[in-house]
């Protein structure tokens, strides 16, 4: 159908909203509450347009197009209304943009600038709620909240966690937890998807940049860093490069430049995870263990099971996540080998994830008083750290990670996308059982951004039924199926964030679906072009077993690489 916008004819599709038609045709319409792929709420009223024959302004995000519609998207009346909305939002906003972690990335700040707001027109009563710094992963500053509701919706509709909701009414409204308690004692699973959708500085990760810089500056400390599989294909966006640009070599060089003593690759311990988890799967399958087995790489998912579905804890693989396996190895194996006391090692990880900060602080993740991992930085924090240190990543000469904990295969690398763990595990499980490689290493049905993917794998005549789930709403649906009797599944990969780590809660902001797709493609390109594609062919991993660990699921593995889970009593 055809509609008229600002005296220009454009094509619109039956059933779509005015907003979607306008945006497709290059008409930018601001919104603060709209989220692609989710039902509109019409809460912020910024997307209003004039429609001929309508008395009032129409919210374009929730109004469907109709044949012959005549729309004005930038009339003085429209621009005035939008400006008033932003001015009212600013009326009780703390004017501390200079000190805000979202400065220059804040949608509210950007809108104020776009709409030409140069002074405070209304001065409202300022909200003075306490900042919630109770969580090891996330910080909430309700004073900067504009009540757009994106965090509430992503928590409820995508993750099915509902740790937060709107509380109170009218001018006293705020977004909070049940009984307004700290996030640390709520049902929050620390995924950080709320941070990703937040338009302002009301939500952020708990920053650890200063701690890391202090450790680097301390001459007595040996500071080791590991970077997760998904970092090298997303960090580029922090420096305004095209989504999907792989900056692995430059990133390694930049990390050295900043002053890290060793740079390791979490993809190495991802390979190690596959050896352990693959063996665990084979053991469960052959000796009547609890099935389906669920992957345990994603700490948000782990806390989700512990909180909402403790009866499924025996189904979780006992393998620690790659981050924690690496952490355990650095302060035992590597420390021993280098003759450094573990007390003098500061172990840092770069993760696409905010829940990893929580994971690193779990009681199970250390020896005695020492935690295996000291600091966890998100991709965004790494961007900030490099900018603060004046390291221009684009100008770096490509470098390679340190041995042996920096040696990876492409199987470890694809952990960064939903389906990657399963694909890597399938490659190795097939080899472990049959002694032969899969005919085709690429397992296409496991790839892509769909929330639930299923396949059946033939291992020497045995059918292994597998599923790949991302987004905890999808995971909950699957758990409910299993709870009500579904029995065909053997192995399930679950990633907390929709699409996996490439779309994690610690990733660069303002990424649309195309950006996430580009990140995913970059990982699979690395897999396609890489020389070694299976975890069991990782020479450094083999050597680690020969010289230190013994064998998968062996005594040492159990001590260092496996863990246990605990049910959580919270109001949920």
């Amino acid at each position, binding site marked *: 159908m055809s509609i008229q916008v600002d005296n220009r004819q454009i094509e619109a599709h039956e059933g779509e909203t005015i907003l979607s038609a306008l945006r497709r045709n290059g008409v930018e319409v601001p919104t603060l509450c709209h989220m692609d792929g989710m039902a509109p709420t019409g809460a912020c009223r910024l997307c209003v347009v004039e429609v001929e024959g309508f008395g009032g302004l129409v919210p374009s995000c929730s109004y469907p197009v109709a044949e012959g519609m005549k729309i004005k998207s930038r009339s003085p009346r429209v621009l005035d209304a939008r400006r008033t909305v932003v001015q009212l939002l600013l009326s009780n906003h703390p004017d501390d943009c200079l000190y805000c972690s979202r400065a220059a990335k804040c949608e509210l700040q950007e809108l104020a600038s776009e709409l030409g707001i140069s002074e405070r027109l209304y001065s409202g009563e300022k909200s003075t709620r306490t900042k919630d710094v109770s969580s090891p992963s996330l910080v909430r500053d309700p004073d900067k909240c504009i009540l757009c509701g994106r965090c509430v919706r992503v928590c*409820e509709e995508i993750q099915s*966690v*509902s*740790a*937060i*909701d*709107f*509380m*109170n*009414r009218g001018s006293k409204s705020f977004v909070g*937890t*049940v*009984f307004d308690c700290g996030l640390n004692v*709520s*049902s929050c699973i620390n995924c950080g998807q709320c941070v990703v959708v937040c338009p302002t500085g009301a939500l952020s990760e708990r920053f650890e940049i200063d701690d890391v810089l202090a450790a680097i500056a301390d001459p007595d400390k040996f500071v080791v860093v590991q970077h997760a599989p998904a970092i090298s294909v997303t960090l580029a966006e922090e420096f305004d490069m095209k989504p999907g640009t792989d900056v692995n070599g430059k990133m390694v060089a930049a990390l050295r430049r900043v002053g890290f003593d060793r740079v390791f690759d979490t993809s190495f311990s991802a390979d190690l995870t596959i050896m352990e988890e693959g063996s665990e799967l084979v053991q469960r399958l052959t000796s009547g263990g609890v099935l389906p087995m669920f992957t345990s790489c994603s700490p948000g998912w782990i806390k989700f099971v512990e909180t909402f579905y403790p009866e499924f804890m025996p189904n979780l693989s006992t393998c620690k996540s790659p981050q924690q396996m690496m952490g355990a190895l650095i302060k035992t194996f590597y420390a021993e080998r280098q003759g450094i006391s573990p007390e003098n090692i500061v172990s840092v990880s770069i993760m696409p994830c905010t829940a990893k900060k929580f994971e690193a602080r779990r009681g199970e993740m250390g020896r005695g008083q020492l935690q295996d991992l000291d600091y966890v930085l998100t991709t965004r924090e790494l961007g900030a750290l490099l900018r603060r240190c004046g390291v221009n990543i684009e100008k770096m000469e490509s470098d390679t990670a340190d041995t042996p904990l920096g040696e990876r295969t492409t199987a470890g690398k694809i952990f960064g996308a939903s389906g990657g763990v399963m694909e890597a595990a399938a490659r190795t499980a097939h080899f472990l059982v049959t002694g032969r490689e899969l005919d085709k290493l690429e397992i296409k049905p496991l790839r892509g951004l769909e929330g639930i993917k299923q396949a059946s794998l033939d291992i020497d005549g045995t059918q292994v039924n597998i599923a790949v789930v991302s987004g905890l709403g999808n995971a909950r649906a699957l758990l409910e199926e299993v709870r009500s009797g579904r029995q065909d599944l053997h192995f399930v990969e679950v990633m907390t964030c929709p699409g996996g780590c490439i779309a994690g809660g610690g990733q660069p902001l303002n990424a649309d679906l195309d950006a996430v797709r580009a990140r995913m493609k970059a990982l699979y390109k690395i897999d396609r072009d890489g020389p070694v594609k299976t975890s069991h062919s990782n020479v450094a991993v083999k050597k680690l077993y020969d010289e230190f660990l013994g064998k998968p699921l062996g005594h040492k593995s159990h001590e260092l690489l496996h863990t246990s889970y605990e049910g959580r009593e919270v*109001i*949920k």
Partner: protein
Amino acid sequence: MTTETVNVEEIIARHRGAGRDTLIPILQEVQEAEGYLSRTSVAKIGEVLGLPASKVYSVATFYNQFRFQPLGRFHIQICRGTACHVKGSAAVLETLCRELEIEPGETTRDRLFSLEVVVCIGVCGLAPVISVGGNVHARMTPGKVTQILDIYRGKAAEDA
């Protein structure tokens, strides 16, 4: 206390599997029985209705009628209806809050007083009015607040 708890559990259990539209009636029933909505009750109500506790709390905090702290020994209701407002109930409320160091909906730390704002007790001729433990005090002024509170403090001391 024990009988009350059982009572609340029974109320909640009776509604197992009901639709989310029964949320507000359940909240009212539970508050009626328990005097307030406890953490346990909020969690339980969510569980039986299949709603997250945050959603239950969200709905409950939207309405003034729900409170989340147990009632004090003397429950104070202050009328903020039109007649009382015109006769100066705002200042009375302000004084009450200052004297008791609580906001409406809260209970003093010694559990002696709890405060609730209501809209019209039906004795507009005596405005502004407050009711303390069921006794109506007429033609209130900020000055009379301490005096009246002291009467009840005295009663409590006598019993102790």
